[in-house]
């Protein structure tokens, strides 16, 4: 009797782990499918596209697509620019959001609740709503009438990195409200006794923050840095509006179809076949996300760990 019950339990567990394996493997495949597909497309020769026997592994192996996509996208320069832009906004955003988050969590003053409501508002209002006035503001940037007083003219900040620098230094860049929220939640969870101990040992508010709270906030910083970097890298909404001629990954990607046609028509008109265009475009997408995937392989273990410790979840 006992043994039968035991084996029934064992069977149940075995069936469950089988079902789980099938589910997870299947869904993993669904997620990986587009990437695998792009890799396979990137190394295919054009003739393989129509060959019915080629599905995944190409018959005629070639680097032509990758070479074409790289030269059209101006790849290395673009990669460098994107790294600079994302890295810069990430560092500035993390710094300014950490300051604001700490202030909202611990250094409370009259009206800071109202201001925190403002943070929530920045999360809720879609960026589309305020984009046009911000755009006009940046095109004729006057800093509230200060710059025209000095130089007599407004400054056009579009098509430079200044919009990104200014918005991230003031914690109003892409999804910055969310980062402030994360920091606030985190600092709220740190025991007050730590601060009091620091105060008794003679630390002022500033040095308490910089020497004690900030090093302790490592998980929150990791989370914010990861998300901010990735989202800035992929963002097409702000980059395509603010930057028109600079080469960063997402502007290059969105103008890739057009550039590609120019490139191919200039060379050989016969080869401008829509399937080939799409092939090079897929290769371009792969090239654009490849650096992120490589980075991801190194930092992915921090993802769950840090979110868990940020206190967003409880």
């Amino acid at each position, binding site marked *: 009797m006992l043994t039968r019950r035991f084996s029934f339990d064992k069977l149940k567990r075995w069936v469950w782990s089988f079902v789980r394996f099938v589910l997870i493997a299947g869904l993993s495949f669904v997620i990986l499918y587009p990437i695998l597909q792009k890799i396979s497309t990137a190394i295919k020769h054009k003739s393989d596209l129509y060959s019915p026997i080629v599905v995944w592994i190409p018959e005629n192996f070639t680097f032509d697509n990758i070479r074409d996509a790289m030269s059209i996208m101006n790849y290395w320069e673009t990669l460098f620019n994107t790294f600079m832009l994302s890295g810069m906004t990430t560092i500035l955003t993390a710094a300014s959001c950490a300051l604001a988050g*700490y202030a909202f969590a611990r250094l409370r003053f009259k009206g800071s609740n109202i201001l925190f409501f403002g943070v929530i508002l920045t999360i809720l209002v879609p960026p589309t709503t305020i*984009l046009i006035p911000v755009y006009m503001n940046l095109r004729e940037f006057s800093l509230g009438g200060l710059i025209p007083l000095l130089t007599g003219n407004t400054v056009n900040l579009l098509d430079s990195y200044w919009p990104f620098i200014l918005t991230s230094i003031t914690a109003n860049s892409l999804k910055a409200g969310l980062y402030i929220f994360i920091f606030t939640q985190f600092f709220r969870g740190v025991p007050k006794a730590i601060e009091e101990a620091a105060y008794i040992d003679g630390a002022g*508010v500033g040095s308490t923050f910089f020497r004690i709270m900030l090093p302790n906030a490592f998980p929150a910083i990791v989370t914010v840095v990861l998300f901010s970097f*990735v989202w800035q890298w992929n963002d097409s909404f702000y980059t395509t509006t603010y930057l028109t001629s600079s080469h960063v990954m997402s502007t290059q990607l969105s103008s890739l179809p057009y550039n590609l046609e120019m490139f191919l028509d200039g060379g050989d008109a016969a080869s401008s076949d829509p399937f080939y265009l799409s092939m090079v475009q897929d290769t371009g997408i792969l090239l654009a996300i490849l650096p992120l995937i490589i980075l991801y*392989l190194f930092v992915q273990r921090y993802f769950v760990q840090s979110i*868990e410790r940020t206190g967003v979840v409880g």
Partner: protein
Amino acid sequence: MNAVRKVKMSLQSYDGQKVLWGLLFVSPWLFGFIFFFFVPLLTSLQYSFSTIEASSEGLNVTFTGLSNYIEALAVNPNFNRQLVESLFEIVIDVPLILIFSLFIAVLLNQEFFGRSVARSIFFLPVILASGVILGLEAESLVQEINQQNANAGGLANALGAFELERIMLRAGVNDYVVNYLTGAVSRIYDIVSQSGVQILIFLAGIQTISPQIYEASKMEGATGYEAFWKITLPMVSPLILVNLIYTIIDSFSRSPVTELIMSTGFDNLNFGLSSAMAWVYFISIMLILAISTYLISKKVFYQE
């Protein structure tokens, strides 16, 4: 004089120092909030009620009342259709995404061989499914060819959802429910790719539940199924709310309405109409958020 000294004294105290530093720390954000958020928000509201003409001296803003709103809702052929479509899509997708991501988070929390690999695969959409990549992917022809090849090769692929539908209909399941479920199956990639962050948040939440609770319930004879409904679900219910809000905001940012608003503003240079559309859009998000938050928050369980 006395009052000044009082203020001076209070600023020298620890609490006074805190207030000073607090103001200092908040000031960059506040500055940006005013310049890059609040003033633009008001300007956009003003634009939405006016006609804007660009001239050599700058912009001529004339107040025209509700005409932009009327044009957006009644005259423009695309706006109201796209708005209603994307609202429907959200109402349909959000429950699916929430249930799916909670389910996956529970799965990924269990011990099994290759768990860390599975986790890193499931968080990949956080990186991949955003912004421009998604838009370009939709029009990829290579993908289409391959899909056709796959369909020709393996009939099972196409038949899967169809068979399921027939079985469920025979079993007497409601028509509407069947369509909802089979629709979900065929859109599985969309759902998976939108639930990266949600899985992450749920997983982190599940991991903060203390194992003692599960141990105690196991001693009392609870099965894993019961433990899920009686322990895991109530404990993560605050996160359901968080994820709900995140999902709604996220799915609005990828809806075609955003594109329409942008093209009205920047290609047709009709700033007034574009702002009016953006405000209608914002208000409808707020409505959906308010209704769903109200419905969910009554069920949320807090420990305190």
